[in-house]
């Protein structure tokens, strides 16, 4: 039996066995942001420890930055200002690479890693953020960690970790028009449940996955975590290598050729062993929308919301709670639900291809008058690229606000928040109660093109009718 990528990369990075089930794992790349790191730096100071390999750390600021007047300091929010000063101070004291507000590479940590070529196949990556799984799109093992572990990686470049099992998710068929990576992952989570991935890394495979661009693969891997998996990855292929060639921190010249050979060798063997396999055919899929309060409560836009009598016994309670919070009725249609806010952005869908897809829907149309619509690039590079292509004008002419880079309304640690019971069509990744900043606010997750369709129609709409 051959070996899968997960186990190859794990073995390559294993430092020692700590106990029967726990290994010490070397972390090739550590990504740091302002929210989960201050207490970790403090712990290093208390122990008098340096950062072990500063060149393996990349830091930025994304969660708390406003997306308007981003450069005007001090921030009006004292707490945000304090956090910003802390990361500036910490990265300077410890000698770390920092893409701060004065850098053209600032942006959401999961967007700037790949676009600068730090994220590479066959490496291990850790970050104090659950959506670190995004980087698995390149065939890296990428783990979201807590602050104590951020401390461990800073001080030792290693983690105490248990090896995961691997579930292969094989997506066959072909992707119809109007179906995007977001729809595929929402469908996988709806099928396997929000606990389907517990104890697993997901290997996304099959013709549909390998037909996706790198940006789309990132969307899929990003939401592995919403499916309960600790990590997700796609085996590296020519699409991966083409994306990486010429990026600022990718290997250059002969080194690149050598790297490709190494990357190819890290991919799962054709006869690799898996702990579980799940098969899905994308051919008859519809665009997906979540109607409830967990990312698993997704349905096709042309379907009705479930009746309590139809759901699995274990789902009854959460289904009831979802209806209570969302204010929808059992069996209602999702299409036509009037929205208040449209949000395109986040580490799930804040990349250039997302804005291109949304702009195609928005072009020549107007945002419904009752809708507040935000387009928030995931990084400064995405923003500049979009502006070069004139996408910003398409959005603003339609009535979207075109903002500066950051996490924005994905989690509302910055001024972008839902107000009261507003219903939002969001391209982000979590529809948990309170996630977008209002304890009574409501979130429906969907692809950026679907958010664009909802913005112009003023209600949940089937994007296939608009393209």
């Amino acid at each position, binding site marked *: 039996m051959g070996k899968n990528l997960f186990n190859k990369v794990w073995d390559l990075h294993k430092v020692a066995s700590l106990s029967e089930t726990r290994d010490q794992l070397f972390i090739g790349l550590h990504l740091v942001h302002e929210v989960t790191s201050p207490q970790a730096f403090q712990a290093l100071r208390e122990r008098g420890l340096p950062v072990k390999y500063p*060149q393996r750390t990349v830091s930025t600021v994304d969660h708390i930055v406003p997306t308007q007047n981003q450069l005007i300091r001090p921030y009006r929010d004292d707490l945000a200002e304090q956090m910003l000063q802390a990361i500036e101070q910490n990265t300077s004291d410890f000698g770390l690479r920092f893409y701060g507000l004065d850098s053209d590479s600032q942006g959401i940590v999961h967007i700037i890693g790949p676009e600068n070529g730090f994220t590479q196949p066959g490496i291990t990556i850790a970050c104090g953020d659950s959506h670190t799984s995004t980087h698995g799109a390149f065939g890296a093992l990428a783990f979201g960690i*807590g602050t104590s572990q951020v401390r461990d990686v800073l001080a030792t470049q290693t983690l105490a970790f248990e090896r995961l099992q691997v579930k292969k998710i094989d997506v066959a068929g072909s992707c119809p028009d109007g179906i995007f990576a977001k729809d595929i992952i929402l469908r996988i989570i709806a099928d396997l449940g*929000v606990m389907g991935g517990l104890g697993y890394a997901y290997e996304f495979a099959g013709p549909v996955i390998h037909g996706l661009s790198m940006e789309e693969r990132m969307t899929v891997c990003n939401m592995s975590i919403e499916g309960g998996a600790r990590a997700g990855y796609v085996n590296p292929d020519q699409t991966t290598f083409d994306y990486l060639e010429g990026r600022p921190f990718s290997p250059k010249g002969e080194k690149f050729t050598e790297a490709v050979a190494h990357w190819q060798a890290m991919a799962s063997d054709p006869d690799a062993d898996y702990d579980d396999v799940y098969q899905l055919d994308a051919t008859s899929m519809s665009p997906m929308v979540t109607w409830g309060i967990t990312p698993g409560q997704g349905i096709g836009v042309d379907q009705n919301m479930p009746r309590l009598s139809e759901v699995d016994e274990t789902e009854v309670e959460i289904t009831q709670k979802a209806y209570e919070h969302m204010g929808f009725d059992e069996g209602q249609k999702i299409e036509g639900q009037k929205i208040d806010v449209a949000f395109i952005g986040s580490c799930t869908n804040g990349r250039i291809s997302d804005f291109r897809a949304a702009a195609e829907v928005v072009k020549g149309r107007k945002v419904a008058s009752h809708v507040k619509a935000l387009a928030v690039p995931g990084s400064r590079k995405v923003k500049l690229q979009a502006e070069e292509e004139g996408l910003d004008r398409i959005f603003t002419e339609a009535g979207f606000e075109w903002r500066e880079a950051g996490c924005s309304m994905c989690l509302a640690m910055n001024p972008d928040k839902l107000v009261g019971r507003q219903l939002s069509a969001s391209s982000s990744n979590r529809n*948990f109660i309170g996630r977008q900043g209002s304890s009574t606010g409501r979130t429906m997750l969907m692809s950026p093109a679907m958010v664009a369709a909802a913005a112009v129609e003023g209600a949940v709409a089937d994007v296939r009718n608009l393209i």
Partner: protein
Amino acid sequence: MSNNPAAITAVQGTAIPLPGNDVDTDRIIPARYLRSVTFEGLGAEVFKDERFNDEGSPKSHPFNEEKYAGAAILIVGRNFGCGSSREHAPQAIMRFGIKAIIGESFGEIFAGNCTSIGIPACTADEQTIDELQKLVQNNPQLNFDLDLEAQTLSSEEKSVAVDISPAAKTALLAGTWNTLDELLQNEAVIEEVHQRLPSFV
């Protein structure tokens, strides 16, 4: 048994039941309370949006009930702590006074974060959880003893078996749940691995 002073072998005290499944980290500690450079004060913000309305008046919630004040053991349902990797979630629970959590299942990063700060996160089946929650609701003063070595949760009323991941159990019992010292030891091998892997200078 380890003589490491950090070893955690048992947790004793009264319990607090929190019925319901899929309690995510945004509910445990809403994102706006993450705007801080320390974990201090988080105990007061735990379950903030569920415990208080927008005007700050308390709502009905187990964490607001006098009868559960001082509880050391939290009893929860399925998929507790799913969502983000924020260590603020177990930190807030710990700073509220909780020393152990028993649930049907946990979000994986959450469970790992619990171990890293010395909080045993143990599991039991749905029926057991249900019975435990009812038992505590009817008798909030009941004292429990969580024995990690034996993997039992006992009270005068009953004793049940609980499960815990072997890695977490080993780390808690040996007092190595704070992983830093253990990881600092293998310096030479760390350097070897660093040398043979690509870097980004």
